[in-house]
């Protein structure tokens, strides 16, 4: 790791965004890496935008400055756009392609951009963009709610986090309810494999594997 690593996790209320920052945070704590987390969640209702900032290494503000995040992990494609101003130029962007429509979109008061539009817009910010069906993998793992763990697995596969996969897996096991450990670890592994495959298909990104 460079001396610091800034990550922004974007999602929608109910997607388990806050669990991810907790898993990464606890792993950092155990690895003696300094960290700060800032969480922005509105009221308790579902469906509003939720964003977590995770800053590993010494920082003074828990909030990532605009354009400084080395990675953006988006559990929902429109939320990737919403938080994209935090991403550093050519930073790593991992995006789940399953949209969650907002009530404004559902009722016809706003339009949801197509995935192609989202891809085009994000690719203006970074060439290190990977969009994939994390939702499908979560279902494959056995629970659609594990989409967050699929995304974490994908992030881990990129080898940008300063800890070993095993340490992350240990944190997952200790932070999710005991009857959910297996399905969450499976989701994590499916996310890892999916990203590795995805990267293989895109030779320009093969540096990530080294």
């Amino acid at each position, binding site marked *: 790791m460079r001396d610091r690593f800034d990550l922004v996790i974007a999602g929608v209320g109910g997607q388990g965004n806050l669990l991810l920052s907790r898993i990464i945070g606890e792993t950092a704590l155990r690895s003696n890496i300094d960290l700060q987390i800032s969480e922005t969640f509105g009221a308790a209702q579902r469906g509003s935008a939720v964003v977590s900032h995770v800053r590993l290494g010494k920082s003074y503000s828990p909030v990532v400055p605009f354009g400084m995040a080395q990675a953006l992990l988006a559990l929902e494609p429109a939320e990737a756009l919403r938080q994209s101003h935090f991403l550093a130029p050519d930073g790593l962007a991992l995006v789940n392609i399953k949209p969650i429509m*907002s009530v404004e979109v559902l009722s016809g008061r706003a339009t949801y951009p197509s995935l192609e539009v989202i891809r085009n817009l994000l690719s203006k910010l970074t060439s290190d963009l990977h969009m994939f069906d994390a939702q499908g993998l979560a279902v494959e793992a056995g629970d659609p709610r594990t989409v967050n763990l699929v995304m974490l697995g994908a992030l881990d596969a990129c080898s940008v986090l300063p800890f070993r996969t095993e340490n992350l897996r240990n944190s997952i096991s200790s932070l999710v309810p005991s009857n959910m450990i297996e399905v969450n670890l499976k989701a994590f592994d499916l996310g890892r494999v999916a990203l590795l495959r995805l990267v293989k298909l895109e030779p320009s990104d093969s540096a990530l594997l080294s």
Partner: protein
Amino acid sequence: MVPLERTLTASAVGERALLMTNQAIARAAIEAGVKIVTGYPGTPTSEIIETLALVADSLGIHVEWAVNEKVGLEIASTAAIAGVRGMTVMKHVGLNVASDILMVLGLSGVNGGMVIVVGDDPGGWVSQNEQDSRLFARMADLPMFEPSTPQEALRMTLRAFELSERLKLPILVRTTLKVSHSSGIVTLGPIAKSKTKGEYVKDTSRYYVADVVAQARHEWQHKQMQQARAILKSLNLNPLYLKKSQKLGIVASGAAYNYAAEAVRNLNLQHKVALLKVETSHPLPDDKMKKLLRSTKELLVVEETEPLMEDHLRMLSYELPQGHHAIIHGKRDGALPETNELSYEIVASRFSRLTGVRQRQNKVESDARLAIAEAVPPRGWTLCAGCPHIGTFYALKMLARKTTKGRIANLGDIGCIGLAALPPLENVDSSFCMGSSIAQASGLAYAGVDLPIVASIGDSTFFHSGITPLIDAVVNNAHVCILICDNETTAMTGHQPHPGIGVSATGKSTRKVEIEDVVRAIGVEHVETTNSFDIIETYRAIDRALKHDGPSVVISKGRCAEITRREARKLGAALLSFVVHSEKCKGAACMVCIREFGCPAIIWNGASGKAAIEPSLCVSCGLCADVCVFRAIGPGLSS
């Protein structure tokens, strides 16, 4: 990994834990040996009580959700008068409610350590305003600490208990939304043993606060505050980083300090800029402020939200010889915005301008930014799928449309019901402060407003401050309909219990106060309880209530959909979804379920040109089946 309960109760000194500021404050209270903790739910501080409730029984702490903040402060501070340590927790606007007793506590003083935690919301993201609680500390003349990080929150809260006991004055700890909801690594300290049994000692010279007692105690309070200044000075708080060569100084506190420190590092200003981190918002560190004023040419004050330190620095500068102090920049001269939350970006760009040091900016095409901003669909707040309030306010909307062409006055209140002001319901007119709707409705009635007048208030808000205005409405015979929307929880802040639930903060079964009993006891003659999930029944009940001459109450009861969802999940039960029978759906020609009703589970299928229901969101409340006059919506047979 250590579960939160164990981290909270661990006596392992020096152990490190990842805690949110709110959790760190809870741990501090435990380390201080607190005996009584009260609070009222409100973002950003709700998690403090929730965290303490987890371990209240095992540690023998009385933890409660008080009916309101005033009651909460009265309970905890009087326990502190009896000599045990107390804490109360609220959001900034809660301190308005509690301010009556706050203003007296500095005169009576306390005996056990008493800490008041108040969470501000610069920007008013989840509140009616962005008021600055530091001004309350000044007005009540009580010491206030302001941490920037979870570790500081622990240290300062602990110190606040000790100092409070030493000075016999309650002490405030102020956080802001960004600080409250940030997490970091915290080193745990020892858990102190403190007094566990209170004693009551009658002392009218302290506790009968009026007239000559108030005058004498006011003098005493001023003496205590002089002592507070001396003690705080000796504690070496408020770190000042100052070198001779520095011409620019920064004064900052709380979250604003975090932005300032980050900007100093990122712009490499360590050698150019002096920095004073203010940790005691009241009393302010005059000596260090004067030193900085004398040593620099220019000072920038970075604070949220009012220019309190800035004005204080201006005042201090009058005590220095003219021309021998720095020029002060801040909100008064427009160097920083006067309103709203600050950010790293605002602070860094101001530093850059004052020092001439260019920001290392990551270039992003502004065209790309603009295109993204245009493409991002809004994702605003909304009532949840299956919310009982959707039924209640749809019924009211239809009733108003039928009887007065939609013209009614519907004064709203704090909480989820305020979201019925949003499209497509667009039904609630206003939102001011806790419990205001009822007296506001009376005000309109007495003013002779010639409209049906409704006050819409939630269950927890009714207990908090809806009862007194209801008494007023009864005594003065206000012709208003009070619609109490009882979703059986304090929903917006995260489902805390309230007096109408029958469950305590620690999850124990307790006496339940029935809203209908309260309303009847007050003397309301026309009272009806209706099912929020039955639109016709609710419509008729409100219609009858509005026709009643004098105050009437309709209690629209329906459980919060989030609780239904959570319980189903716990049981592992699948919630059946309602379905749209597309052959009966009139499609674009109708769209009542989407354009008027607006349950988020009802979606528009562009391909078929018909409505549909998203099964993952539907909780089978059945409201939509009543809304569709073509009977195109009904229960599905499988999920």
